[in-house]
């Protein structure tokens, strides 16, 4: 009796998928471990490996078939010594079982899933990837190729945390390997007719930026709030503080940005509901106040994190930030140093940008775009005066944070910046 090859489940939640492409033709000899076909879901493309040996007798579901139910027979494999005459009965029974497929799907979930685990544990180049069982399963569910992730566990093992970071917040650390088919290309633009160009292949980092920020701008209903912060008091305090720095060990030089980081963190303490992530089932409220800071590197943008920034003083923030930024530029950050974070600060003030609106860094809900500190005319007590003013724009995810909440946060932030001594409290 020919062996039925069934539509595999790529994840416990998968009920149907697309049979994208057969790698074997009818009549081909199949050895255990051979790639038979590619299956696509909305999340991933996976290869189906042969478990049994034989000759591919009959393809029941052709290339490009959509909506193929899990556990539906997709082909028949002739065992040693069987000839094609054995196929007829088998085709009848295979088609008969088709109607049963949905019912069977639940009961046999784990069995057909397993071969997929093995294909998921090898990287694109076929080398072995070490990952915890939980990480492997989560990667399959999220449609992530484990080869594209660097593990942070013992001996570089990929653990749950790495998958979570890759799903919700991470830029893949190894630019060389792009996720195989984790996401279908979103936009394909043809170059203008006749235009001369040269190709600069996209690095993994470039692709990750394109995908994540593309998704963010498309999916997150952004709104923007801008405040002007008067900076003279802060600049005075900064000068005073820096003048008191010891020589040699323990020396510090606090920047305006360090104040911004601390103010952003302290403001979260007062308005914690911006330090959140939207998910379909719940809003996740983070316990820790971790501030991501956008750093431009030759390869692209990366956002290292000052963890628990509300518990850190200006000198600590300053020295951590210098260290993170310099290692970011050298491409030497560990994944846990840039994956996560609850709020991102993007400062383009040093380029003279007056103000701008940033794209939210998912899964965060807010990003603070900081402009240049510049002398501007202001009205004080009914008279025109000059003050150093810095415009800050908060981009907010309206799904998780409403306007009033965002405004409240920004008001607290402004007050901290304008009365920097209160940051000591």
């Amino acid at each position: 009796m020919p062996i039925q090859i069934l539509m595999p489940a790529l994840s416990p939640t998968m009920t149907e998928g697309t049979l994208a492409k057969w790698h074997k033709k009818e009549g081909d000899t199949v050895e255990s471990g051979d790639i038979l076909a590619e299956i696509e879901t909305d999340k991933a493309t996976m290869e189906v490996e042969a478990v049994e040996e034989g000759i591919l007798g009959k393809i029941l579901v052709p290339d490009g078939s959509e909506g193929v139910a899990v556990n539906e027979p997709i082909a028949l494999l002739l065992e040693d010594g069987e000839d094609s005459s054995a196929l007829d009965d088998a085709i009848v029974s295979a088609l008969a079982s088709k109607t049963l497929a949905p019912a069977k799907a639940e009961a046999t979930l784990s069995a057909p899933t397993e071969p997929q685990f093995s294909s998921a544990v090898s990287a694109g180049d076929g080398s072995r990837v070490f990952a915890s069982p939980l990480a492997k399963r989560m990667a399959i569910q999220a449609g992530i190729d484990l080869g594209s992730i660097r593990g942070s566990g013992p001996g570089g093992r990929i653990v749950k945390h790495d998958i979570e970071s890759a799903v919700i917040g991470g830029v893949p650390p190894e630019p060389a390997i792009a996720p195989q088919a984790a996401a279908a290309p979103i936009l394909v633009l043809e170059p203008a007719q006749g235009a001369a160009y040269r190709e600069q292949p996209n690095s993994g980092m470039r692709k990750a930026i394109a995908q994540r920020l593309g998704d963010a701008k498309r999916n997150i209903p952004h709104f923007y709030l801008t405040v002007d912060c008067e900076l003279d008091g802060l600049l005075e305090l900064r000068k005073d503080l820096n003048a008191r720095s010891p020589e040699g060990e323990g020396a510090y030089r606090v920047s305006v940005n360090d104040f911004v980081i601390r103010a952003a963190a302290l403001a979260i303490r007062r308005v914690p509901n911006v330090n959140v992530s939207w998910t379909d089932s719940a809003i996740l409220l983070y316990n820790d106040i971790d501030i991501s800071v956008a750093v431009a590197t030759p390869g692209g943008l990366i956002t290292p994190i000052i963890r628990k920034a509300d518990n850190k003083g200006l000198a600590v923030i300053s020295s951590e930030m210098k260290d993170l930024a310099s290692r970011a530029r050298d491409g030497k950050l560990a994944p846990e140093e840039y994956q996560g974070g609850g709020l991102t600060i993007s400062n383009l003030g040093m380029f003279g940008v007056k103000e701008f609106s940033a794209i939210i860094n998912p899964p965060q809900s807010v990003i603070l775009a900081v402009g240049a500190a510049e002398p501007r005319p202001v009205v004080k007590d009914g008279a025109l005066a000059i003050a150093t003013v810095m415009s800050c724009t908060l981009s907010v995810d309206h799904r998780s944070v409403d306007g009033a909440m965002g405004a409240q946060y920004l008001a607290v932030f402004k007050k901290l910046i304008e009365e920097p001594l209160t940051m000591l409290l």
Partner: protein
Amino acid sequence: MAETSFDIVIVGGGPGGYVTAIRAAQLGMKAAVVEREHLGGICLNWGCIPTKALLRSAEVYHNIQNAEAYGLSVTGASFDLAKVVARSRAIAKQLNQGVRGLLRKNKVAIIDGHGKLAGKGKVRVEKDGKVVADLTGKHILLATGARARLLPGLEPDGKLIWTYREAMVPETMPKSLLVVGSGAIGIEFASFYQDLGAEVTVVEVLPRILPVEDEEISAFAEKTFKKRGMTIHTGATVKSLKKGSNNVTATIEKNGKATDITVDRVILAVGIVGNVENIGLEGTRVKVDRTHVVIDEWSRTGEPGVYAIGDLTGPPWLAHKAEHEGVICVEKIAGVKDVHSLNVGNIPGCTYCRPQVASVGLTEAEAKEQGLTVKVGRFPFVGNGKAIALGEPEGLVKTIFDAKTGELLGAHMIGAEVTELIQGYTLARTLETTEAELIHTVFPHPTLSEMMHESVLDAYGRVIHF
């Protein structure tokens, strides 16, 4: 003068401090431990170990009293409290000497006295009010531990009203006992004294005993203790303690109603506070929040070069948490590759009452609060052959899985020997296994551990023996 300059000076020689010192020495650091009283700390001298010795005596006594059930006849069983206590003290002494030997073997300097910060990189050691040493350390690690929390109006006197310390060395057996607080410490003493024949009343301010455990386990424990004759008041407070000549009258308030009970002795076990006083924190940038030193994930305090671990830094107040924190801290200092900060969710907790309680990870309620969809498995001791053969048919193994990913979110056990079993689930969590690996694991028959397998099977609708 002995050596006074070290790579690391550790203040406090409890389980956190001495283990950290040994690890530091293994990493090639010159380490010193400053200890004011006993190497091994509260854990070894006045906590974990001596109480286990007492509880073992109580367990053996309980088994002798139940000898009939095993077909054995024992007549005239009794106990000699002084000898029970002496055994417990001897065991503490033996292990204390063992720690001293381990430190010597690893060439860790042991400095006898009370250590406190005395300026950058300096620790001053005092004994009987006199300075005995001034040490310098490139790194200073505070591991000064914690002590029993005292509530106003409920002060211990060491005679009629005890803390854990007096409760561990009773001179006479109280006929009746009030235990205030039903955390691990309170419940272990309640169980011990109950087994030796005291009439025990437990008062807990929260709505259930063992409040950090899964609700089902708390309920199971309460039912079992009540069946043994213990009186338990939850959602109740002790308003006052009035001392008589050889007894104490306690006013217990529950639902706004006050009742008086008179008992021979009272044990206060209402939590612990960090030992943050008189260790030189004044004038440093070390931050203290509600008696605990604030640290980051690598045990750094706000003061550069000063670290803190263990009970001093807050819950869970467990020796094994302190040890791990200390090891991680020095490994980070030494620049060991691949150091990972401690995952609090993977720290198991054990209570050695009868029946024992052990757990790791999230409770069912906590998992649901996090918005997770869970699969819950349960397996009762009565379905396990080994449990029946042991004469221990009362207990439960509960497992909680993330329905989506199969992650083992938490495991909660009550019953005989569960404190020895919990590490199986802890290992599973640390390795991030899913239900699949647990189901594929072969558990030996006949053992209590089979229940751990069955509980997982139950979560996935595949339980065999129940």
